[in-house]
């Protein structure tokens, strides 16, 4: 079920009503309702893959219980690795099987030993990369004794399958989300209104900005050889907005929806395009994944222990793995490598934590220096996004070649005025809201209620009038 669908618009009020009016006094029943609703939400796409979620849930629940009872380190390690093998095995099979088979075939053929392997027609289960990481975080935290394992299987199933963030995150830590299932939730007017506001902003980002950008991005990337350098440049910029608004829009809707049910999810995007260098960008982009890699891959690899070279190596690994996590294409790995190339010099020079505050925190506008730094950082990400969007490395190279031709000074052939106007408004609103969890969190709250409602009404109508038709979120494919 898509957040931007009529199905969800009907589903959400029904679950909301059952949750607060029928099961309000029964915590376990509320949790069970969340599990059932989440399975319906997921099964709407393909009910067959519910078995995977259920399997993953039961395996990690059982291992959590076993880890708690066990004190022998070797046995505990065995349990941990069982969880890792099962979860990564599922992910590897469904996501990477054909990628490895294809690349092995190419490699063997290149070295003169052609093989004919069995490639399978595997459908990638939506959200597998997200819920796999979420359950893994639970087992690892229990193993590290950072978390008491749960004995409540319903609460655990709700934690794994919680529908607002099931298919595209934010990837929640068990330490943050799981305890919320143990506590009675109370309805708070302000929390619910805040949730709705965040949903509204998320929908605006997804339906108005991302989906409209997508139309031009698809046209430009698919027919890149027919367009001037300036148009290709514009196409790459549009994609930068598309990917940000698509994914952060999803996170906003997820966080807002969770708030309607009394849950607090973590911020996943913190206005990354207002970053002054790439290190800051990566602290602000897809925070739940970045911190997951930091805690569960980077630190076990040794982190910064072992000297600067080890640290650089570990960071490089994280970027490559992160690229590979996104998809089974060399373009994603190249994207990870390029971002590592941006980031590692900052780390090498010990300048990776230079910008930890919010840009222009105490002023209305940025300084000229800040503006230039933000512009350069944004352009660096735009260049990297070309790799992310391209169908293949050769496609990306051809696109880059086109971008750096003499026609860069010509007017782009595609100039969607309405989209440029919306993008301008969007950037301005994001700028004013950059100190908050999401752009319109406190914007307009000091205005009279009727003014506020009128503004929300205008946003809803813009979504209705200018929104592109129901499109999947990009991150579903990961």
């Amino acid at each position, binding site marked *: 079920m898509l957040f931007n669908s*009529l199905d969800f618009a009907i589903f959400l009020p029904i679950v909301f009503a059952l949750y*607060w009016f029928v099961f309000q006094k029964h915590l376990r029943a509320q949790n069970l309702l969340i599990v059932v609703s989440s399975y319906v939400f997921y099964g709407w796409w393909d009910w067959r893959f519910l078995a995977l979620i259920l399997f993953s849930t039961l395996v990690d629940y059982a291992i959590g219980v076993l880890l708690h009872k066990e004190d022998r380190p070797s046995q505990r390690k065995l349990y941990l690795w069982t969880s890792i093998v099962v979860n990564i095995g599922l992910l590897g099979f469904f996501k990477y099987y054909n990628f490895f088979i294809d690349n092995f075939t190419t490699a063997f053929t290149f070295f003169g030993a052609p093989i004919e392997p069995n490639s399978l027609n595997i459908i990638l289960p939506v959200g597998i990369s997200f819920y796999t990481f979420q359950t893994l975080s639970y087992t690892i935290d229990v193993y590290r004794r950072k978390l008491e394992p749960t004995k409540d299987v319903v609460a655990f199933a709700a934690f794994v399958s919680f529908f607002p963030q099931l298919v595209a995150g934010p990837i929640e830590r068990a330490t943050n989300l799981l305890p919320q299932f143990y506590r009675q939730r109370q*309805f708070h*007017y302000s929390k*619910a*209104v805040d949730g*709705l506001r965040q949903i509204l902003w998320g929908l605006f980002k997804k339906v108005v900005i991302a989906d409209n950008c997508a139309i031009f991005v698809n046209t430009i990337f698919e027919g890149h050889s027919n367009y001037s350098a300036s148009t290709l440049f514009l196409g790459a910029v549009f994609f930068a907005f598309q990917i940000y608004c698509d994914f952060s829009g999803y996170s906003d809707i997820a966080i807002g929806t969770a708030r309607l049910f009394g849950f607090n999810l973590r911020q996943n995007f913190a206005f990354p395009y207002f970053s002054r260098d790439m290190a800051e960008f990566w602290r602000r982009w897809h925070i739940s994944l970045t911190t997951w890699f930091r805690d569960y891959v980077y630190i076990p690899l040794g982190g910064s222990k072992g000297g600067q070279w080890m640290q650089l190596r570990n960071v490089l690994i994280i970027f490559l793995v992160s690229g590979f996590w996104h998809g089974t294409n060399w373009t994603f790995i190249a994207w990870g490598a390029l971002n590592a190339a941006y980031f590692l010099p900052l780390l090498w020079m010990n300048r990776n934590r230079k910008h930890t505050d919010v840009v222009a925190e105490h002023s209305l506008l940025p300084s000229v220096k800040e503006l230039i730094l933000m512009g350069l950082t944004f352009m660096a990400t735009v260049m990297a996004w070309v790799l992310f969007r391209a169908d293949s490395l050769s496609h990306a190279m051809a696109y880059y070649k086109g971008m750096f031709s003499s026609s860069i000074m010509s007017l782009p052939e595609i100039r969607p005025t309405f989209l440029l106007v919306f993008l301008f408004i969007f950037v301005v609103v994001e700028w004013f809201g950059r100190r908050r969890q999401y752009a319109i969190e406190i914007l307009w709250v000091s205005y009279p209620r009727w003014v506020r*409602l009128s503004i*929300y*009404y205008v946003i*809803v*109508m813009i979504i*209705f*009038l*200018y*929104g*592109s*038709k129901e499109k999947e979120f990009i991150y579903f494919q990961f």
Partner: protein
Amino acid sequence: MKQFLIQIAVFSVAVLISCYFVFTQADGYTDAFYLKFTTPKQHSLIIGSSRAGQGLQPHIFNEALTHTSIYNYAFSRIHTPYGRPYFESIQGKLDTTRQDGVFIVEVNPWSISRHKIDNMDSRKFWEETTFINKVKNVSSNPNLKYLMNFYTGRNVEILTKKGGNYHNEIVFVDDFGWFKVKLKDNKQRKQKRTDNLIQSYEILLEDYIGLSNVRMTYLKKTILYLKPYGDVYLVRLPIDPRMLAIENSLMSDFDLQLEKAAIDWDVDYINLLFMNEQVEFTDGNHLIIESGERISKLVADSIQQLK
């Protein structure tokens, strides 16, 4: 909670009313098909593909044939080949209270061919996922089901009426369901468009397998269903000779088969392929307005004579 629910309810009602108002503004400019699902049931119909949708002009028939108000309920090769979905849609659109209707059934090889996505063993038609199968209420104004699920433009275009108008060209569906297309053409542009379309149909050939007995059965079913409500005429519209060559490679004996079938079904087959060289097309497939007018008059005259 109470305050929250009241506010949500009031806000939602305001939004829903506004959205409904926008939908009420949808009309013939919205897209090439929408209006056809909003008009009342009809007692006389033109059915078939986009060739008929654009080429056969109801007002010409209504002038030539007395006591007839014919409605163009033809869509496109993609949506309305003969099969269960179109048959049921026609059933929904027909006013069965009268028996003096006129039914012009446009046929061409694509409309009775098997597409490779068709699964005829399980009676699955490839057009089942489209509006012709999904929009069950074909006489609702506004048609919310269509607008919410099958209208592909942005809703703002419903208000600006720009959905079908580009560069001051006329593209809209009139009150009788006719898809009027007037392009500001020059010879080069038209030639390029025609070449592109012919090329795309050459590629399209690979997706078609040839005559489908199931689709042929549905064509027969459609005709037999319509016959009690009036006179049925099978019509083959003119096309660019290059397009005809493609169609011949798909089904070389199409006209022969249809002539035979028409005799079996006791209807008349009006074959206008002899006009191929005497008319003009926007793209090799669809008649320009003036040629459509001529052909519509020709069909109307034939019907007069056959009556």
